[in-house]
């Protein structure tokens, strides 16, 4: 037994001594093969098929290394903090609610990506300088539980105005705008709709109509919402939830055969559009590779892979949507939007006002 | 003292202080090769500290320790080659008996077969043959002591130190072990420095006895010397002699509160403290000598100790035969035998007037 112990201690010592050596190896691996590797920095939700990334390597000779950390906000803030020594070549995942913070901090080098002409104008937020390239968009909308409204012989809400009507009392759960990205987007949607003067008034009514606020999307959608598969198991009792327009297609994912109609739907008049951008990081070691990667992110291959990987809509109009999206996704024609500059200027103050209004 | 014979251990002016308290105060001590020395003293007299200094477990504030003539300053504990048997054994609870006894051999990289042979031999010697695989937690106090002894002896230390070696054992076991140990050390030629508070143990075991008091050496000598001529009232009282009285010597008699007491020829004249050993207190018929009342009687197996109250001064202890011992409250006369009268030196004794 003694020898076992001795061996264990020995191994631990070796492990401790080995640490700096291994760390050094890890470090050198990065800088040494800089020209052959292109590093993508992103948030934790970034996902791509192995096969698609392989295709990029085959086409360009660059290997993609992906560094992920935290949610979108965390990732952007980390990129800003480390801008003097950027962690990689390309950053993906800054959205229109955070874009100004990134641009004001001079995070990106301008680059006009190939294929930008196939991206609708309204998605091109930095069309003049091309510091960032739109990659995808997604709408944050109220989702509803079809079964609930059928059972109660009630038509689901379709607009912000509907949500404060008495027939929808105590039905909506949303996320804390201070801690959750869809929560913030939903608030921005109301600001876009009712303006600086009216949005607080709207929220007062929403609160009076029995709004529930939870901290994160996971709790709202997986625990409180009665329409999602997870929510059903958790005996969720809120038939309305602030989520994504792409959530209904996700609900039928893996269901075979595909049903005629998904269990959830989207209140199309309650949407706020989020656009995600990618940009070439200033100080990138591999500028050429980074540019190639941005081109690739906007290319058809990646754009068609993206919807089922990240549940977003491709920015490239040529990309075909998967069946789940075309059949179960809602067509959002006129989502609310706000200029990134305006968001940047007012966001903190809006969130503070919202917190003291809604959370108290 | 001449340096012809090499001292195995020599302490030279060793002082140890714990905060304001001096545990060892400029102690000089030699232990010759093959000699067994017992340090005797009440608890708190610095005996254990002495052993710890020699072992290197306790740094000395001043002075030096020499082993085989080499200064041990800067030599760490494990390189001193001494053995120490702790008072409460300190057997390693996670090892069996064999593991404990063989520990020192393993530290000295003795081969496995050789070590096993030595362990078996030592266990035979201490009377626990075949106990190698037993758990130390399951041993009795006496057995633990034997294992501790075997463990200390196993590496054949040049100096074996024992801290209250027989402390917690019952009397008969202790008396038997003392004899066994003495024989064992004689046979092995081990040099021993032992510490005890039990005079019987010390006298039975030691070639030489060192009595300590408050960090200093009060007296050193053979057991017989110390027993017969305690150097001070402290030593006398520590040895259990309480018949001590103030005296003024003139000629071959001394004047005391107990009356006139004979003293050996050549005693220094004038004031001193006087000890009369209980054996030297003779009972006389009631009308003769110092009139006393028997105030207590203690049975001691082969003799009786009487406590006698004289008209003046402290009570006297007298040893007498079982037969004819007076009853309590009896009146007796007392005389003194010059052979058992010891004049105590005034040195090292604060109570001497």
């Amino acid at each position, binding site marked *: 037994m003694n020898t076992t112990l001795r061996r264990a*201690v020995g191994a631990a010592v070796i492990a401790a001594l080995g640490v700096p050596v291994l760390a050094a190896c890890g470090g050198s691996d*990065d800088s040494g093969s800089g020209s052959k590797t292109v590093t993508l920095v992103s948030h934790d939700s970034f996902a791509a098929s192995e096969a698609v990334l392989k295709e990029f390597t085959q086409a360009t000779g660059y290997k993609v290394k992906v560094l992920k950390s935290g949610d979108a906000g965390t990732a952007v*803030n*980390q990129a800003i903090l480390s801008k003097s020594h950027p962690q990689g070549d390309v950053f993906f995942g800054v959205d229109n609610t955070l874009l100004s913070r990134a641009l004001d901090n001079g995070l990106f080098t301008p680059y006009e990506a190939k294929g930008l002409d196939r991206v609708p104008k309204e998605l091109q937020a930095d069309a003049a300088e091309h510091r960032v390239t739109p990659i995808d968009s997604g709408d944050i909308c109220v989702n509803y539980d079809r079964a609930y409204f059928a059972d109660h012989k009630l038509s689901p809400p379709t607009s912000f105005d509907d949500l404060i009507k008495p027939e929808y009392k105590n039905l909506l759960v949303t996320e804390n705008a201070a801690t959750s990205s869809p929560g913030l987007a939903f608030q921005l949607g109301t600001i876009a709709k009712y303006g600086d003067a009216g949005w607080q008034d709207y929220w007062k009514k929403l609160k009076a109509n029995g709004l529930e606020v939870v901290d994160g999307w996971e709790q709202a959608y997986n625990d409180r919402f009665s329409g999602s598969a997870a929510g059903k198991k958790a005996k969720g009792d809120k038939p309305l939830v602030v989520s994504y327009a792409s959530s209904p297609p996700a*609900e039928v994912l893996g269901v075979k055969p595909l049903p005629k109609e998904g269990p959830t739907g989207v209140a199309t008049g309650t949407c706020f559009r989020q656009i995600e951008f990618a940009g070439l990081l200033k100080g990138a070691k591999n500028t050429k590779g980074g540019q190639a990667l941005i081109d690739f992110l906007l290319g058809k291959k990646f754009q068609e892979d993206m919807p089922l990987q990240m549940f977003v809509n491709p920015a490239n109009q040529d990309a075909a949507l998967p069946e789940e999206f075309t059949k179960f996704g809602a067509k959002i024609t006129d989502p609310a939007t706000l200029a990134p500059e305006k968001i940047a200027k007012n966001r903190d103050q809006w969130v503070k006002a919202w917190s003291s209004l809604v959370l108290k | 003292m001449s340096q012809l014979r090499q001292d195995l251990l020599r302490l030279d002016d060793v002082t140890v202080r714990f905060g304001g308290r001096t545990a060892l105060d400029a102690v*000089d001590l030699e232990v010759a090769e093959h000699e067994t020395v017992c340090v005797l003293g009440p608890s708190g007299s610095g005996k254990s500290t002495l052993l710890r200094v020699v072992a290197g477990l306790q740094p000395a504030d001043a002075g030096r320790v020499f082993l085989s003539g080499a200064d041990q300053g800067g030599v760490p504990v*494990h390189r001193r080659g001494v053995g120490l048997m702790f008072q409460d054994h300190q057997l390693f609870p996670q*090892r069996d008996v064999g593991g404990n006894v063989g520990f020192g051999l393993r530290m000295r990289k003795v081969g496995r077969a050789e070590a096993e042979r030595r362990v078996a031999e030592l266990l035979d010697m201490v009377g626990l043959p075949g106990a190698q695989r037993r758990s130390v937690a399951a041993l009795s106090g006496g057995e633990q002591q034997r294992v501790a002894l075997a463990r*200390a002896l196993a590496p054949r230390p040049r100096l074996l130190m024992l801290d209250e070696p027989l402390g917690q054992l019952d009397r008969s076991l202790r008396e038997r072990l003392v004899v066994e140990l003495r024989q064992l050390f004689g046979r092995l030629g081990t040099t021993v420095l032992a510490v005890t508070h039990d005079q019987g143990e010390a006298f039975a075991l030691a070639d030489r006895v060192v009595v300590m008091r408050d960090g200093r050496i009060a007296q050193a000598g053979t057991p017989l010397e110390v027993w017969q001529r305690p150097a001070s009232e402290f030593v006398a009282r520590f040895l259990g002699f309480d018949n001590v009285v103030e005296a003024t010597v003139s000629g071959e008699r001394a004047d005391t509160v107990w009356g006139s007491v004979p003293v050996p020829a050549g005693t220094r004249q004038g004031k001193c403290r006087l000890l009369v050993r209980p054996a030297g207190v003779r009972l006389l018929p009631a009308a003769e000598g110092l009139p006393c009342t028997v105030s207590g009687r203690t049975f001691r197996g082969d003799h009786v100790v009487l406590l006698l109250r004289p008209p003046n001064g402290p009570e006297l202890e007298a040893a007498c035969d079982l037969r004819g011992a007076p009853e309590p409250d009896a009146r007796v006369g007392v005389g003194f035998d010059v052979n058992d009268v010891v004049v105590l030196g005034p040195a090292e004794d604060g109570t001497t007037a």
Partner: protein
Amino acid sequence: MVLARPEVDVPKRPKRLSRQTAVRLGLMALPVAFFALFFAYPVSAIVARGLKDGGRWQFARVGEVLGDERIGHVLWFTTWQALASTALTLVLALPGAYVFARFDFPGKQLLRAVVTVPFVLPTVVVGSAFLALLGRGGLLDELWGMRLDTTVWAILLAHVFFNYAVVVRTVGGLWAQLDPRQEEAARVLGAGRFAAWRRVTLPALAPAVAAAALMVFLFTFTSFGVVQILGGPRYATLEVEIYQQTARLLDLPTAAVLTLVQFVAVAVLLGVHARTVRRRETALKLVDAAQTSRRPQGPAQWALLASVLAVVALLILVPLVVLVLRSFDGPDGYGLAFYRALASADDNGGTFVVAPLEAIGNSLAYALAATGIAIVVGGLAAAALTRRAGRLVRGFDALLMLPLGTSAVTVGFGFLITLDEPPLDLRSSWILVPLAQALVGVPFVVRIMLPVLRAVDARLREAAAVLGASPLRAWREVDLPLVGRALAVAAGFAFAVSLGEFGATVFIARPDNPTLPVAVARLLGRPGELNYGQAMALSTILMLVCAAALLVLERVRTDRSGEF
């Protein structure tokens, strides 16, 4: 007896002392370097970045932030919920510690492993499972129509759920080794059963209880996920606030002030803790744990065992079982659909975010590396701290605990801005994750090892030294076997913590080899039954991996106990 006395010119004591000091400093070198580089430097850099504006220190900011009424509320809530959670955990878990230490019953090892499982599960997973107990349609709701999911009770009970094992393992580990005869001696002296426990056992246990309480308090004081999920937006702890200010608002000045506040609070706590422990710590008589436990006797002991098992079943097993059930509750009824989905990577055009086998491998590799680092760093630190001395050393003791009281986001962001230049550009190295995990593991190792190391009788070490063992050898021969059990417990904790660690991992930009908790969180962050089901399936796998690892550990414990 006249001897020539050469002048003694070199005083021996200072020389010896300096050697001891040198040994201690040597032992401390690695832990100190580790903490300086991977904790103190990153954290102070991010705090300094926040408080320094244009090269000038902005101390006015401190007053501004602290004057904010909302921050005051956050501070108050953080403190009282942590105190309440700690008290509740101790009340519910101390009987459990006793039962695990002193009773033998079938399935004890398995149960001890199972109660530790919650500790390593990501809060996102457990939060939703816990709702099944306290929430709408949950067990309490069905039985008594009681819902606790939006009350503070949900937070407190979830904290008990998470920290039950901390108390059972830290206190129970020592309790099992206390000599029951000490209590028997007190009984013979006329003390009642409870009085004997209070006067004899409790004082002996006090250091372990204090250590456990400190851990629980630190965990609950810095609680993040539990508060967010079960408390809702109305309840925010300091940790949540720091996260928002740093990760969302990038308001580094405010975050810096809050981090400092958290530091001060944790430092005060550690100071108080150090004082009380030092006063109470005594050399303990430790015995073989296997000899102290026996089957319960009499109705009172059986009742105690039953009530402890009931608490464990209700509070710990029910949420875990719900989790497992959900992982089987597929679209076509109960089955292995979600597990099959995990296994077939190309299903549905790659909805799959992580190869689960790979995530398990990643998790194990990271956790092993982190455990190795934590055991070496923490073991060396504990060895250096064994002999109490000097204010410096005590300060070091407290320093080691600080990471537990530091927000993961602070450490993660600190790493980002400090470890960014060669030779220390570790930002994209895999080693960063185990390093961050070890930061959390080291305090466990030190806390668990230290009381036991200090309880080892110094004279045993002396006995070994006299028999020829060098200090290092004596430590290895005497201390190590005696503290082997504690070492195993410490390693287990470090491993479990690393396995379930989420906060630091998620804030560190890392090459894409996610750990199980990260993979679970990713799946949960996506809509759809398949994703949710896969998250549950992966959580169940995480649970099993963890329980298996802990069970192995239990085996090691019993094997070794034969030697004690």
